């Protein structure tokens, strides 16, 4: 595969970065931490709640910045950096997403939400000179997330079926990241395996994942499967995925003008 083509498809795969990962909205309500961080004052706890409940990502980021200044020794720092990371992700700022995410991960290396977000954002980021290093980090985060998933405990307010679905979506996200990492390393068969596993785990079909699988199939010479996956991507959407999948399908079928 020529380099130009590879770069194009790597870019195409990564361009599907969605503002918010499907499962991340549920983390706060679904997961019970074995040792929750303890606020030392009502002010500290309220300041944390203000960030967690802020609907505007920029406001969440600003409040998080203020929190870190005001409560520099807080047990909530990992959570606050994580919320800041999601704020930046919502704004599409990958560099700052990673910066905040890595601070969150330093404060709590076992936080699955942070690990998965970093694994998802990192492969599309970083200078060309240290691509492999970046991919190694992404891969490491995804694998650590898969390890940590088995130890997560559910809130009793969450039904077992919802919890199962939640875990499977998180697993799917980890495999998706591993698929992207493998693709960027030109390890296409591994990439296919990871994307297939991602789709198999995910209880909710996502067009972007079928699109990625379709492209990976194409790179392993599995044209029929590639067409089927891209057709699924078109059927599922959303529109940004449909548009990319249509272009790719036309190219694959040789019908592109």
């Amino acid at each position, binding site marked *: 595969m020529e380099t130009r083509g590879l770069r194009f498809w790597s870019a195409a795969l990564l361009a599907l970065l969605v503002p918010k990962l499907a499962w991340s909205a549920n983390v706060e309500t679904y997961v019970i931490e074995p040792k929750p961080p303890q*606020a030392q004052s009502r002010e500290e706890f309220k300041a944390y*709640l203000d960030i967690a*409940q802020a609907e505007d990502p920029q406001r969440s980021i600003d409040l998080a910045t203020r929190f870190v200044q005001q409560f520099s020794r807080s047990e909530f720092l990992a959570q606050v950096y994580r919320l800041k990371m999601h704020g930046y992700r919502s704004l599409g700022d990958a560099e700052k997403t990673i910066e905040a995410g890595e601070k969150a991960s330093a404060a709590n290396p076992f936080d699955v939400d942070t690990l998965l977000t970093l694994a998802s954002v990192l492969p599309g980021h970083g200078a060309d000179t240290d691509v492999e290093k970046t991919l190694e980090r992404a891969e490491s985060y995804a694998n650590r997330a898969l390890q940590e998933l088995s130890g997560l*405990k559910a809130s009793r307010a969450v*039904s077992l079926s919802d919890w199962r679905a939640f875990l499977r979506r998180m697993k799917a996200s980890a495999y998706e990241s591993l698929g992207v990492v493998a693709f960027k390393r030109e390890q296409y068969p591994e990439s296919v395996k990871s994307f297939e596993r991602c789709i198999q785990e995910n209880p909710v079909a996502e067009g972007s994942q079928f699109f990625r699988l379709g492209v990976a199939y194409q790179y392993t010479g599995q044209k029929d499967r590639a067409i089927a996956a891209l057709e699924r991507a078109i059927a599922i959407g959303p529109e940004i995925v449909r548009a990319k999948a249509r272009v790719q399908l036309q190219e694959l079928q040789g019908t592109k003008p």
Partner: protein
Amino acid sequence: MGGRSLLLSASRGKCRELIQQRGIPVTPGPPRWGEGSDARRLVAVFYQLVELSPSIAILTRAGSNEGPPHHFSMRSFRSMKDCVLRFAFLTLLTATATQQFLGQQAAEESRFTREPAPAPEIAPSDQVCTAFELKLDSSTGRSCQSLAQLAMAGRWQEARPLAEKLALELPSNGIGPYWLGLIELQAGNTLSAFRRLDTALSLSPDVFWVHLNLGLCCALLRQYALFEKEMNWVMNKHPSQPLPYYYLGRHYSKTREDTDKGLALLQRAVNLNPADFRARYHLGYLFELKDRLGEAKAEYQQSFEGAAAHRSSYSWPLQGLARLHLQEANLAEALRYARKAVSLDPRLSENELLLARIYLQRGETDLAIASLEHAIGLDQTDPAPHYLLSRAYSQMKRSKEAEQSLAMYAEVKAAYGN
């Protein structure tokens, strides 16, 4: 050697002798364990011990690196996992057998760690309204009293508009946010409740009831440092109020696992308010954990009588009495109390679960299965009934269902813990 404590100081043979002295019938362990060495046999005996007296303390090695390898002492069941792991190591048990042992431990331990969750504390109407410095014959004072009456009657939805009106009428008094906080707390909206009660505290910083309910709200949010602060404030300012002792007692015994401190606090709560049947139940429960069964029984009995006098459906003391009779192998009495508990509060899964355990002990497997299925229907997050269900199905040679239940047990435990 008193109570159910047991010291295995010399040999496995001595242990066996002690178990026999206690009249526990020794039958072969699960077939998969075979009839191997003395050590395996002994583990099978322990298995029986756990089955017959689920709350009994189990052998654990005394001290981490001290003493000869077979020097064990009885500790609370909380240490059972440690014991089993060590013993499995010593006796080269298979991983499967150990797993089965730990499964039993987990299923039983959960019986002793689940407790009723705190609910809002509602003050008598005149007390709360005067605490916020309202005149009882004023219109706001009357609104406050109406709110208290609605809350007492559990008519929370009707209380909301009245509380909102009060908050608008008295913007610099904490009474409106206080009632709104309780309404949110009762509805399970703990974050909103925290915000409301925090506002109430800012406006009325010296009201006992605000500190108390804010503390409870913090406990529900697992903000234990804040919870302790609020309870300590109440204890310092109102040393004769029993409620902070009650809640701190529960907190110390459960969250901090400091049974002694929990016991002392609950005793203080009971001394300050001998009619508090909840405090008495929890005090009895700690006595039970500490193997002081006579005192446990007395507290459960008084708790039950107190709840009955208040026409409350509080069934926990009946459960406690049933457990004690079960430990004494008095299955008829255990069954009587467990049935009473179920009829008093049929929505409480723990009641059905205990009933099922008694049925299992009596060999009434069909009834046990029905109770266990009911318990699962009431609480799908508790792994224990799935484990017991697998045992019940095994006894009935329904191996496929037994396997399914065991798989469910593993999944529920992995998801929610014990």
